[in-house]
C-alpha cells in the first residue's frame, strides 16, 4: 500500500478500534433493526397469508425477510456523513481541516467506514438472529463474501451522494431537508422498505435507472439469490455510478472550497 493509502488505512483502523470501546452502545443501537424487522415480519407474514401464494414476484416469505434484513443492515450501518460535513462547512471548522495533511473527503470516508464495519457486524447478527429464528436459515454461505463486496461498493456510492448533499451547505447552509428526502428516496427507490420486484413494471424500470437501487436493492437481492453473473453485472453497474458520482463530488468540492466564507474565527 502506498504511503498515502496507509494514512487513510490508519484513520480507518483507529476509528474501528474506537468502536470496540463502546460495545454496549453498539448493542443498544442494534435494537433499531430488531424493531424494524419485527414490524416487517408481521406485515409480510400477514401479506403472504392473505395472498395465499408461496412466492410473490419470485420471492418466498423467507427470501423477503432475509432481503429486508440485509437492506436494513446496509442502511442502519452506513456512515452518516451529510450532516457531519455540512456542520464542518457551516461552523467553519472545515477551514482547520483543509490545511491538515490529508484530503478532507477521504478522511471523512475513512472515519465513516471505520464506524460502519462494526455496526454492520452487530446489526447483521441481531437482525440475522431474529429472521433466522422466525422464518428459517439464511441464504447459502458462499454468496456472503460476494454480497460483502457489493455492500462496500454500495456504501461508496452512498458516500458520494451524502457528501454531495453535505457540501451543498457551501451554498444553502442548511442541508437537513435534502438529507431527509434522500433518505426517503432510498427507502422507496432503493428498495429498503419493499423489494423492487414487488413494484409495477414501469416503476421498476425507473428505479433500476437510478443509483439508489445499487445502494440497497442490488446487494440485498444478490444476498438472497447469489449468482456469479448477477454479481459481475451488479459490480460493474456500481462501478459506473461510482465513477460518475465521484467525479461530480470532486468537482463540487473543488468549487466549494473556493466559495468558502468563514464568519469569525
Amino acid at each position, binding site marked *: 500500500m502506498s504511503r498515502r493509502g496507509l494514512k487513510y488505512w490508519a484513520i480507518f483502523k483507529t476509528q474501528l478500534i474506537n468502536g470496540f470501546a463502546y460495545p454496549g452502545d453498539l448493542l443498544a443501537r442494534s435494537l433499531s433493526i430488531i424493531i424494524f424487522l419485527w414490524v416487517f415480519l408481521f406485515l409480510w407474514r400477514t401479506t403472504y397469508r392473505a395472498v395465499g401464494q408461496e412466492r410473490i414476484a419470485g420471492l418466498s416469505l423467507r427470501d423477503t425477510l432475509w432481503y429486508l434484513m440485509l437492506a436494513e443492515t446496509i442502511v442502519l450501518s452506513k456512515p452518516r456523513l451529510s450532516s457531519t460535513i455540512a456542520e464542518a462547512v457551516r461552523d467553519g471548522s472545515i477551514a482547520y481541516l483543509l490545511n491538515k495533511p490529508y484530503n478532507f473527503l477521504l478522511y471523512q470516508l475513512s472515519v465513516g467506514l471505520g464506524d460502519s464495519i462494526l455496526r454492520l457486524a452487530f446489526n447483521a447478527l441481531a437482525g440475522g438472529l431474529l429472521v433466522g429464528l422466525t422464518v428459517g436459515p439464511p441464504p447459502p454461505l458462499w454468496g456472503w463474501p460476494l454480497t460483502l463486496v457489493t455492500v462496500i461498493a454500495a456504501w461508496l456510492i452512498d458516500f458520494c451522494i451524502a457528501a454531495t448533499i453535505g457540501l451543498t451547505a457551501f451554498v444553502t447552509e442548511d442541508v437537513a*431537508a435534502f438529507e431527509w428526502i434522500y433518505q426517503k428516496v432510498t427507502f422507496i427507490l432503493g428498495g429498503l422498505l419493499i423489494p423492487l420486484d414487488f413494484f409495477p413494471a414501469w416503476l421498476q424500470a425507473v428505479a433500476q435507472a437510478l443509483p439508489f437501487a445499487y445502494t440497497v436493492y442490488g446487494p440485498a437481492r444478490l444476498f438472497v439469490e447469489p449468482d456469479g453473473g448477477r454479481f459481475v453485472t451488479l459490480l460493474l453497474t456500481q462501478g459506473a455510478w461510482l465513477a460518475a458520482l465521484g467525479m461530480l463530488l470532486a468537482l463540487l468540492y473543488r468549487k466549494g472550497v473556493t466559495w468558502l466564507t468563514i464568519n469569525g474565527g
Partner: protein
Amino acid sequence: MRRELTFLLALWKANLLSAMEYRAAFISQVIGMMLNNAVYFAFWVIFFDRFQEVRGWGLDEMLLLFAVVAVSFGLGVYLFGNVMRIAEAIANGRLDYYLSLPRPVLLHLLASRSIASGFGDFLYGLICFAVAGRWTPDAVARFVVGSLLSMIVFLSFLILVQSLAFWMGSATLVSAQAANALLTFSLYPITLFDGTAKFLLFTILPAAFIGAVPAEFVRTFSWSTLAHLLLAASLLLTLAVALFQRGLRRYESGSAIQVQV
C-alpha cells in the same frame, strides 16, 4: 391555569419570532418534511397497488392513520420541541436554568424549543386528512379530538421514558430507541399484530393510542373508543408528570454555568 396558558402562549410566540429570523431555513424544513413524508407514504401506495388490502386495511385507512399520527407528532414537537431532549437536559445539568425561575419546570422546559420540521408534519397530516375526503363537521371534530389525545399520549410517553435519566444518568439512547419504536409501530395497521405484540402496543409501548385507536375514532364515532383514548391519555399524562416531579427531587446539578439563548 390561566397564568400557565399565558406563559405558554408567550413562549410559543417567542419561538415563532425566533424561527422567523431564519425564515428560509424554517420554510425549507417545513417543505422538506412534507416532501419527506410524501415519499415515505409512497410505500403504502405501491404496497396497496399490489395487494389491495391487508386484514381490512387499505389505502384510505392508511391515509387517516398518517393524518392523525403526522398531526399529533408534528404539533407535539413544534409546540413542545424539547420533549426529545429531556434526558439530555437532565444528564447535562441543564435543568438549573428552569429551576431558578418561578414557572412550572416541565412545561417551561418542553415549550422552550420548537422543532420547525414538526410544522411540516402537521401540514402534511392536514393534507392527508383532506385527501381522505371525510369533510363532514363531525368527522373534522373527531379528527381534532383524536389528534389532540394522540399528541398527549405521545408527549406523555416520551416524558415518562426520558425521566428515567433521573435514575439512570444517561437515558438518551434508550429514549431515542423508545421514540423510534413508538413512531414505527404507530404507522402500521394494528390488525397486523396479534397476541403478545398487540398487548404490548396497547400497554408498554402505547403506539396503538397514537395511531390506530384515534384513526378508528375519526372513521367511526364510538363512546367506548373515546373512553379508551381519554383514559389512556389522562393516565399516561398523570404518570409522566408524577414521575418527572419525583425524579426532580433526585436531580443534582453539576453547577455548570448555563446561558439560555
